[in-house]
């Protein structure tokens, strides 16, 4: 199903490429070459894609955990912002030895993100506040709060764009390669994917969370601490989004700045939806999305002269198609019915 949606999304998008006056086939070839290709270690766009995909993998996994616990949380954006802010602040405000420094910053970021996820979880489970609505409001609040912090108390200098001071060298997650900032963050992301996959399907806690989401009545009947499991799921979800923010702050930007999260939360969320809320699939789709955007930026815009915004457009179309699977099913049914009518109209002998 997701593959069908990907193909359908790209077919529809090729109409837009034609409109922009380019050949869709060569444009897509360019896009994939620049999005996922790798000629030498220094000029390897796949590594850049993996770097860009790291936060998306994590926000996607964050969404998976929340969805599996039965809460449609769209608060990853806010949790990521606050986690990044916390990590960036600890990155320069305290002095610690090299390995411990990022470790502490990441843990603190996860804690902050977790609490910011725990809050809408409690509101939903205890008071019945719609978690979609509360996370939207919380996202805006987090955004305004971080903008305030980097504009006033934590502002580095009076330049036109606001950002916090650069973090200490001890706190930086050093990249492996010279070209892209591809570093320990990606390893951490893979680790999270593995842990979440194992946790959701192989441990009691994960089972409780899935039951709280899938079959709340059954969970209660079976003695599962349903409410607690759902809230715990939200805390974990928030912590993972906070980790994404910490990796961005410590490994990519080395500071907190305006426009820190350019829709990272929503892209991760959509990756989770396209992958039908499965951790490993979500990671793959998230990296695919990052490659699409990267390829759209370099391959489409520079080589084929098609605006890079098409990358986002293709992603939107894919989500549209995956969410509209009934549309496919209905039309597949119609197609089958028409085919059967054709078959029935034929003389019996010709049908083999």
């Amino acid at each position, binding site marked *: 199903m997701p593959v069908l949606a990907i193909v359908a999304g790209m077919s529809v998008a090729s109409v837009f490429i034609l409109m922009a006056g380019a050949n869709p086939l060569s444009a897509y070839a360019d896009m994939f070459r620049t999005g996922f290709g790798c000629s030498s270690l220094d000029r390897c766009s796949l590594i850049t894609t993996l770097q860009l995909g790291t936060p998306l993998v994590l926000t996607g996994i964050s969404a998976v955990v929340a969805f599996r616990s039965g809460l449609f949380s769209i608060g990853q954006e806010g949790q990521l912002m606050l986690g990044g802010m916390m990590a960036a602040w600890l990155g320069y405000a305290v002095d610690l030895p090299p390995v411990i420094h990022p470790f502490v910053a990441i843990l603190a970021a996860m804690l902050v993100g977790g609490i910011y996820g725990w809050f809408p979880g409690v509101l939903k489970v205890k008071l019945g506040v719609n978690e979609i609505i509360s996370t939207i409001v919380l996202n805006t609040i987090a955004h305004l*709060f971080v903008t305030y912090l980097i504009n006033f108390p934590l502002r580095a200098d009076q330049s036109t764009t606001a950002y916090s001071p650069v973090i200490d060298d001890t706190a930086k997650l050093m990249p492996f390669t010279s070209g892209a900032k591809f570093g320990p963050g990606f390893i951490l992301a893979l680790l999270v994917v593995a842990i979440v996959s194992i946790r959701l399907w192989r441990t009691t806690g994960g089972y409780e969370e899935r039951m709280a989401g899938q079959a709340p009545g059954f969970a209660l009947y079976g003695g599962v601490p349903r409410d607690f499991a759902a809230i715990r799921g939200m805390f974990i979800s928030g912590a993972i989004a906070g980790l994404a923010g910490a990796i961005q702050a410590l490994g990519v930007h080395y500071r907190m700045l305006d426009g820190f999260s350019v829709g990272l939360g929503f892209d991760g969320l959509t990756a989770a939806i396209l992958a039908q809320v499965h951790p490993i699939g979500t990671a793959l789709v998230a990296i695919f999305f990052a490659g699409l955007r990267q390829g759209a930026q370099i391959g489409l815009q520079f080589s084929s002269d098609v605006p890079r915004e098409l990358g986002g457009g293709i992603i939107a179309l894919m989500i549209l198609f995956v969410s509209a699977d009934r549309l496919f099913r209905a039309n597949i049914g119609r197609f089958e019915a028409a085919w059967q009518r054709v078959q029935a109209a034929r003389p019996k002998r010709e049908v083999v």
Partner: protein
Amino acid sequence: MDTLADLLTPDLIRSGIRLATPIILSALGGALCHRAGVLNLALEGKMLMGAFIGILAAFYLGNTYAGVLVAALAGGLLGAIFAYLYLRFEVNLIILAIAINLFIAEMTVFFMRTFLGDVGTWSDPSIEQLPDIPLPLLDQIPVLGRILSGHNAIVYFSWLASIGLFVILFYTKFGRHVRAVGENQEAAETVGINVTQVQVFALVISGMLCAIGGAFLSVGHLTLFTRNLTNGRGWIGLTAALFAQDHPLAVFLTGSFFGLADAFAIRLQTTTNVPPNLVQFIPHVLTLVALILVALRVKLREWLARRAFRLRERRRPAAVQPTGLSPR
């Protein structure tokens, strides 16, 4: 040193009203949808599309009012497509809304770059901004006239739309149907209300309102289009609708509150060193508090009803009234 009273000048309130207009319009659209039982998160995308189509139509037709009209029609059409996908194919509304928001945010820039030249911001000197219209009697009154008169047509439209939606929702058959569908879809169906029709209408009208709100930004407030022109105003509109409990007149007040907070923040930024974000903060935090309070009220009512029921049950076998017992 500025005091609060010095800052609250008529000019500030005027700009507050202007900034509130798109928020009010999108919030009305959101409120109508919520009343009809549809959680509409695509307000932002619908506004952005309205802004884009509004300025394009104003450019090609040479008439700004025609541009706004075309934007409204396009918004209605998008609402209809939304309704079609939702009601015919049961597409998940939230996913659909996320897809629409993303699609419009990216594709407006795509079209702008493809067809209007490779630019980040598009404008044309031939596009006329919506003219300000002084209200006949009101502009004679000293302070009030300065605040309320001399806005453009969409500002007045947002006021009329708030009142109009209030009348429609609470005093017409269609409005009763909308509220019935929103409160209990199955019950509404049972008494013979055409739920599909009601929701389609709600989505179409909501799309039109959002698109007009967006067009206000592109041809009423500024005369340009740029990447992500709406800049989260659709989400603020959604928040304003939630804060107002989806009541049109309250939407007008909360929308104005958000707009005033924005105007105040801008003013603070230019005149003092007080952090402007803190002012913008207030309405959002209040919305969260309002959401919690409403949920608490529902819980409290539930709890009281349960308690009353238990007391009654207990009283039945034994005639003694068990006062002071814990409700559990």
